[in-house]
């Protein structure tokens, strides 16, 4: 018997703009003891679904039923749900920093939960907590019981969160992106811990994630959601090697992995996710589906049930020929090209002045040497806090180095000041991580992209407008949107605006600081392809900073691995991945989780087709 079973869960959230159709008739069931994954891009409704199930979504209209241990969660009162949360359903959230109260010790936060659900003495609760902290891998649990959250690292905090979720041995744990905020190496440790806990306590885990590689490696069954709709459900093994829905296939094809070669274009899913305020009559994915037919737009697709248990919401069966990825191309040779950036023994020390006397200094960069040649993409990888973004700002001239020299187009950048410094800005441009924060929300796109022309007195009036529109076209934006505000664009389009602005004054180096880490996989592929095309057409030089090794492997010719302010390994991209030398590189590489290669499955048959409608429940209700 399944531990939790959802039937036709439909969620409507009324807002100022209208009703958000957050989930449309979603059904799934999770067997006791398994890991069930929910995958989807941001805004697909995966977190909202879990919040609705646990009663954490006041103000929404929820219909359908969710049977948990035989009782319907959606019919329970808030008091009943409160008793259930924590004792029967544990939760692990994405951000361990904000989920723990900074003013209480971690021990008191865990025992508080024990006391809320069971009558035990303080000493017993403490013993239980210490025992659980030990099990999740916190050393000296007894003495760390009285420590505050800030005394733990990010990974350790997530362990504390897991201990908190597990301490009452709930049969079900809901983990909402538990590793997204963590570094790759820590991410793997946390996944291993969750898996271990499942084995030793028999806990069922529902895991929400956007990381398909991770899901493929840990979950038994998974569900793929898109715009509040369940597009595919089934065993992960089959789903990722031979997906039954074109959306899943598209997601897999657009994620860079060891299969997709460096230098080739990824296959992105065109377009953007639809607005949840709108419900199309036909298939919700029709607008972006590569194999769309007239039928898809007019009729809501049925649920196709395959003999291996997979279910897909689609009119058609994908053929095996779709499961092929573009072939590998040889990377061009850059060794003889001129050097654009030369960084020599750059050191940077931050001095923290405390009020009285004592000065503390932190060495952020400890002697960096690197050269970037014209036309190549130089990758900089490392975990958070290793100094990679700081190095980028030093190269961009935004932070002066303490010692050492950065030469850009044979001009040492730190010797120049005033007007010359402003001139130097023409040579290096930055594209930022956050597509929302890096564009001024109160200025029009035309003015944002045209800013470099204005600042450097390149063009005015009509001429500036013409050049800006040319740039917009180059990065794949509609030039007619010249007068729009950034908030009227989606995340991927905003990143295109950022790229257009960086391209405006034809810099010799563009620094991309995690340009795609805030974007969804399908949008990420569009941006990576755009970068690749621009580089090919305009012979640009890139410095690419990322924590995501699969992305770096896909785009970079040369990679430098950074750890604690030092470059520990620098090599050609292929060689680095094939034959890592430094132990830190090996550790990073072993943490990559790729989904299994696409293989196709020609033996699979559809055994049943069931009509479906997004409005099933609501139609009855009206």
């Amino acid at each position, binding site marked *: 018997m399944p531990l939790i079973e959802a039937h*036709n869960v439909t969620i409507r959230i009324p807002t100022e703009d209208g009703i958000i159709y957050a989930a449309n008739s979603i059904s799934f069931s999770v067997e006791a003891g398994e890991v069930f994954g929910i995958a989807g891009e941001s805004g697909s409704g995966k977190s909202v679904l879990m919040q609705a199930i646990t009663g954490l979504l006041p103000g929404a209209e929820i219909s359908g039923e969710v049977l948990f241990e035989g009782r319907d969660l959606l019919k329970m009162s808030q008091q009943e749900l409160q008793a259930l949360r924590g004792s029967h359903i544990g939760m692990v959230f994405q951000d361990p920093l904000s989920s723990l109260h900074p003013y209480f010790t971690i021990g008191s936060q865990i025992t508080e939960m024990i006391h809320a659900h069971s009558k035990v003495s303080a000493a017993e609760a403490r013993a239980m907590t210490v025992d659980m902290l030990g099990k999740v891998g916190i050393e000296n649990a007894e003495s760390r019981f009285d420590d505050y959250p800030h005394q733990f690292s990010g990974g350790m905090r997530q362990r504390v969160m897991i201990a908190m979720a597990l301490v009452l041995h709930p049969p079900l744990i809901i983990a909402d992106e538990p590793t997204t905020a963590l570094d790759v190496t820590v991410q793997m440790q946390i996944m291993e811990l969750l898996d271990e806990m499942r084995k030793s306590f028999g806990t069922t885990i529902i895991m929400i994630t956007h990381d398909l590689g991770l899901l493929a490696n840990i979950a038994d069954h998974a569900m793929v959601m898109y715009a509040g709709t369940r597009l595919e459900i089934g065993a992960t093994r089959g789903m990722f090697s031979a997906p039954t829905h074109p959306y899943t296939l598209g997601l897999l094809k657009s994620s860079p992995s060891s299969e997709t070669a460096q230098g080739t274009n990824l296959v992105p899913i065109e377009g953007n996710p639809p607005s949840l305020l709108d419900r199309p009559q036909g298939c919700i994915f029709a607008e972006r589906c590569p194999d769309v037919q007239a039928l898809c737009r007019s009729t809501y697709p049925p649920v196709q049930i395959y003999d291996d248990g997979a279910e897909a919401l689609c009119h058609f069966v994908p053929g095996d020929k779709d499961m092929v990825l573009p072939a590998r191309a040889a990377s061009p040779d850059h060794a003889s090209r001129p050097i654009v950036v030369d960084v020599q023994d750059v050191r940077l020390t931050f001095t923290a002045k405390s009020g009285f006397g004592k000065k503390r200094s932190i060495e952020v960069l400890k002697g960096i040497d690197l050269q970037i040649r014209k036309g190549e993409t130089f990758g900089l990888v490392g975990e958070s806090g290793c100094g990679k973004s700081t190095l980028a700002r030093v190269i961009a001239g935004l932070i002066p180095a303490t010692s050492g020299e950065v030469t850009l187009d044979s001009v040492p950048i730190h010797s120049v000041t005033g007007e010359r410094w402003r001139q130097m*800005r023409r040579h290096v441009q930055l594209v930022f991580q956050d597509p929302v924060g890096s564009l001024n929300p109160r200025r029009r796109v035309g003015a944002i992209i045209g800013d470099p022309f204005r600042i450097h007195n390149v063009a005015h009036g009509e001429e500036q407008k013409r050049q800006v529109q040319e740039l917009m076209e180059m990065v794949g934006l509609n030039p007619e949107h010249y007068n729009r505000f950034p908030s009227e664009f989606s995340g991927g389009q905003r990143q295109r605006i950022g790229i257009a602005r960086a391209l405006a004054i034809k810099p010799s180096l563009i620094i991309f600081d995690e340009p795609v880490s805030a974007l969804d996989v399908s949008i990420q592929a569009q941006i990576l392809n755009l970068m690749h095309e621009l580089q090919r057409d305009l012979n640009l030089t890139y410095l690419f900073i990322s924590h995501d090794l699969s992305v770096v492997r896909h785009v970079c010719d040369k990679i430098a691995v950074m750890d604690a302010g030092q470059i520990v390994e620098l090599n050609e991209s292929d060689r680095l991945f094939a034959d890592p030398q430094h132990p830190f590189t090996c550790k990073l590489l072993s943490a990559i989780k790729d989904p299994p290669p696409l293989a196709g499955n020609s033996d699979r048959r559809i055994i049943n087709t069931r009509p479906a409608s997004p409005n099933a429940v609501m139609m009855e*209700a009206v």
Partner: protein
Amino acid sequence: MTNQTTHPKAPSADNGKISEQVVQRSSFELTMRRILKDPALLTAVVFIVLLTLFAVFAPLVAYWTGHDPNTQFRETGMSPFGLPVGPNHEFLLGADQLGRDVLVRLAYGARISLAVGVLAALASALIGITIGMISGFFGGWVDVVLGRIMDLVMSVPFLLCALALVSVFGPSLGLSIGVIVFFSWTTMGRVIRAETASLTKREFIEASRSLGAGPISILIRDILPNLSVPIIVYTTMMIPSSIVFEATLSFLGLGITPPTASWGGMLADAGANSVYLVAWWLVIFPGIALLTSTLAFNILGDGLRDALDPKGRRIKPRKKKSVLSGWLTSRKTPEGGPNQ
């Protein structure tokens, strides 16, 4: 990839149920929608418009009643015992202790109040914005010096200082505005300083810097437009406090020089010789005018903040319908909905 900002939906003639269009509204349109949904704000706006008309057409009021604001009508405005007459058909709001028409004086007083309120608010906003932006953007010692100056101004006792200034220079309209501005720009300065400091750390400012933009260009083109919401809201909120400041000064005889009508002065006149004991209208009407106009401006400021910066707004769930749908669902799904 180019045209997703609006989602025109395919026409669905056969199924009227799902024919809602998703429209993308501009921020101006959204703000207007929120304003129109706020009855308190609308009432305040209507009141302020009426008050402004009342003040602008004060000479018309004088012409219509036939009473000049400063003329004393000893025969008609006062009883044989020398007491002011109450509201009647000639003096709609009564007459004061010198036989002047309270209605006409209220209208002329509104001119003073609004002029002082708006002028003082604008001038202190201008000073506050400039100092706040410089302080927040440059930080360091600039911030320390300007911050301490703001602290200093805030710690000067307002009335003592006003008394001293007036006794030296003599009361006048210009001096009242000056005193009010001097004591009210700090609030705006603090708010703008904090906002600017947090905006300065945003990536788009760094993007501008990396493009080579200078500090003045960043301040005016990048930061100022992002401060429009606090500037509008706090300037509006400063109008009522300036009106009250002016009334206070006039009440103490330090503001507008008699016989010019001002609300604070009218209240002071009513208090003198305890004439309010026999003539309630001398206190009630200027008092109500002062109270309602400050209230209206405060509601306007509050409402504008909600409309322009709708953080943490909650939409009430459509209770009735969800109960109904839940009930119907529970009855119908066991038989197997179409999607079972």
